[in-house]
């Protein structure tokens, strides 16, 4: 079964069984109209989704249950709240929600309808809306500070066959509340996978959301993540996207600053190897005055890999006193790697301070020489410099076990002894 047949089949299975059938049908008809995003669309100019052509599905495949021991190493800390989804379904036995139930409302796809899109930015989101099998609905009341971070694990277990799963999440955060969320997607098995996760966040006044996306998956894993964030006045959103391994990653982050005095920070680090393809797209819309946004993405490219960065900042006519900064820095380690970057500003207000910068280059010879002249091997010196470059982003991660976990992964990858 190829990808198109799979979509057809999944849709027929899910339409009658869960969720709002009408919303699913509308989304499907829109998907049929707009199709998968192609190179003709400006936002997908550099993004190649041909991997979908090689997908081969076999629905008779029986997957055994995922054991706790199989995911133990993925758990950042056993203390943290934890939601585990396996192959599109929620697995309660692996999850750890403790006394969190009063804050978090988990829904089954069949139980709730919410947030129907007015507009689908691309075909994948329409597809997600029509096919999503599960997701989390998190509702945090006013004045609640979640004592521990919540880790959401999406586990895909397969043998040789392809797996296609779709999740849809909604997180509403009340006034003066705060939550930390860690997202991890992981494949256990040898087949190729494609996972789409569409999440919508609503931040109440003076609330804070810290979102950590740690992407380190198998070489046959493909991921499309869509995050839309609506911020009310004085709210604070911090997003971390650390992409270390996978075959294909595309992150779309859309931030709407709908109240005054909002702060937004998007930080990203990507390290691409072999023929990996990682793509970070972001759009920050300053709709109201006196908001600050800060975007910093660092990337290291090796092998025949490709990375894309596209950051767009729109400052609407009302949004005076906006401050928006954006920077994208890249180190290329190989002559076969490709970087495509486009930091973009669209400004319709005059009392603003906006800037962006982008650099591409290799490691400075002087820096390497400095370290080598102090008795450090060239290989080690190189790793140290790269690690320092990555640390500019990872240092900002406030959750200690997560930071050390990521740094451990990185140092393994950068071969630091």
């Amino acid at each position, binding site marked *: 079964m190829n990808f198109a047949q799979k979509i057809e089949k999944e849709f027929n299975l899910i339409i009658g069984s869960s969720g709002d059938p009408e919303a699913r049908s509308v989304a499907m008809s829109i998907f049929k109209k707009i199709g998968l995003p192609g190179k003709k669309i*400006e936002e997908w100019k550099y993004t190649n989704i041909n991997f979908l052509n090689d997908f081969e599905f076999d629905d008779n495949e029986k997957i055994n249950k995922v054991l706790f021991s199989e995911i133990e190493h993925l758990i950042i800390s056993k203390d943290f709240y934890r939601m585990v989804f396996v192959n599109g379904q929620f697995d309660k036995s692996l999850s750890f929600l403790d006394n969190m139930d009063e804050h978090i409302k988990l829904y089954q796809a069949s139980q709730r309808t919410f947030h129907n899109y007015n507009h689908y930015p691309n075909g994948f989101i329409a597809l997600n809306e029509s096919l999503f099998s599960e997701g989390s609905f998190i509702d945090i009341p006013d004045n609640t500070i979640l004592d521990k971070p919540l880790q959401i694990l999406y586990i895909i277990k397969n043998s040789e066959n392809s797996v296609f799963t779709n999740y849809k999440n909604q997180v509403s955060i009340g006034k003066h509340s705060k939550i930390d969320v860690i997202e991890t997607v992981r494949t256990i098995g040898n087949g190729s996978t494609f996972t789409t996760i569409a999440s919508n966040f609503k931040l109440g006044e003076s609330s804070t959301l810290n979102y950590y996306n740690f992407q380190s998956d198998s070489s046959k894993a493909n991921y499309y993540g869509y995050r839309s964030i609506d911020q009310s006045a004085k709210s604070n959103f911090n997003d971390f996207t650390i992409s270390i391994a996978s075959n294909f990653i595309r992150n779309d982050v859309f931030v709407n600053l709908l109240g005054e005095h909002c702060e937004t920070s998007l930080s990203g680090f990507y390290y691409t190897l072999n023929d990996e393809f990682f793509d970070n797209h972001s759009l920050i819309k300053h709709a109201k005055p006196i908001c600050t946004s800060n975007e910093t993405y660092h990337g290291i490219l090796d092998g025949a890999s490709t990375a894309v960065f596209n950051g767009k900042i729109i400052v609407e*006519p009302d949004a*005076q006193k906006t401050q928006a900064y954006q920077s994208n820095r*890249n180190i*290329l*380690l*190989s*002559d*076969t*790697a*490709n*970087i*495509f*970057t*486009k*930091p*973009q*500003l*669209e*400004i*319709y*207000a*005059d*009392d*603003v*301070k*906006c*800037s*962006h*910068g*982008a*650099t*591409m*280059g*290799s490691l400075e010879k002087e820096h390497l020489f400095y370290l080598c002249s102090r008795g450090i091997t060239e290989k080690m010196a190189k790793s140290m410099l790269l690690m320092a470059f990555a640390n500019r982003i990872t240092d900002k991660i406030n959750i200690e076990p997560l930071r050390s976990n990521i740094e451990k992964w990185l140092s393994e990858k950068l071969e630091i002894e």
Partner: protein
Amino acid sequence: MAKDNELLEQLSQSDYKYGFVSNIEQEFAPIGLNEDIIKLISSKKNEPDFMLQWRLKAFKHWKTLKEPEWAKVNYPPIDYQAIYYYASPKAKPKKSLDEIDPEMLATFEKLGIPLNERKILSGVAVDAVFDSVSVATTFKEKLAEKGVIFCPISDALVEHPELVRKYIGSVVPYTDNYFAALNSAVFTDGSFCYIPKGVRCPMELSTYFRINAASTGQFERTLIVADEGSYVSYLEGCTAPMRDENQLHAAVVELVAHKDAQIKYSTVQNWYPGDKEGRGGIYNFVTKRGICLDSNAKISWTQVETGSAITWKYPSCILKGDNSVGEFYSVAMTNHHQQADTGTKMIHIGKNTKSRIVSKGISAGLSHNSYRGLVRVSKKAEGARNFSQCDSLLLGDKCGAHTFPYIEVSNKTSTVEHEATTSKISDDILFYFNQRGIGREEAVAMIVNGYAKEVLSQLPMEFAVEAQKLLAVSLEGSVG
């Protein structure tokens, strides 16, 4: 101080000063566009057959294309059948300037263009293009002594067909884009310039473009070839009368720089920008591109864009030869309802190629000003280096400034840097000026001039002063 007074004087004067219409008898080709019109243009010019065939091919291709919509500009659809594609002063002027229609001489006099060869002191050779045809080229003989060919492209097609054939369309093929295809089919005149091996062109070459007739489009084509080790500096200026309708200007400029050659191309674009309500003005859809064919060649674009209702223009460099250099300096000023989508492309192919982009956008009133640029470093371009800086200055809270830089790098030995800022003139700075007895408007003019200095200093002397005045005039009414 004298210069400052002059600036002030300019500030107090109002609006577009080149908006007059010259009353010259003209002949038109029938309105609209079809193969017969193209054949007519070609036969009027006594062109060799290859040119006609090329035009027809371009026209055929153009019919298959759709007008591009990606640029950040809005305009009502253009009716390509409602345009005169050929208009020329009735009696084609003779070689001697005395025989030129005095009205036309007066026109160029008014524009301050030294058509008259007596003005030898100004030291600029001029080719003036009036609507569709070139009316006068000065200093032709003096240039010929050095072997420099500088003439209208229609003359070049008759006198040097082989040279034109070799280079035309080699940098901007007719398949390149919608407007380039249209231009290739219907271009009526333009300048041709060839600098032979090792010659340093003794004077600035210059072309003045003037649209006069109503409902006409201007489609000129400029081709500059600098042979091995030569140098040329070329200036281009444009004006048009004030009319309520929008007129189309779709030009193509091709530059070819051979080994060690250097071309410096400067533009002061001051087409009629439309009135304060956004009525009228020129649609300026221009394709400009240069190629550094061989090693150590250098192409430098400098542009001051103050006119046109809509500007759609990306002077580009293809850096094919090793160690070749491309430069782009631009000041784009928009006011009222003007829209500008301009920038550059730097395509690095050769080893150790270098490029530098300095773009300064100034938007005021209700205008929109976009920088759109591409820096592409191919795998083979080892050690390539690019530095881009694009700043935008916002005057007024209803205008827009946008930046769309595309950066594509495919090797590890190259270094690419890009930086951009957008801001308004801060109150602190204005206060500093006020404190010293300098009024608001004057202060803004000074700040803008300082802001644009990096680009203006690249212009040849004669143009720099003019450009400075132009900026001040365009700014007028946008402050306070």
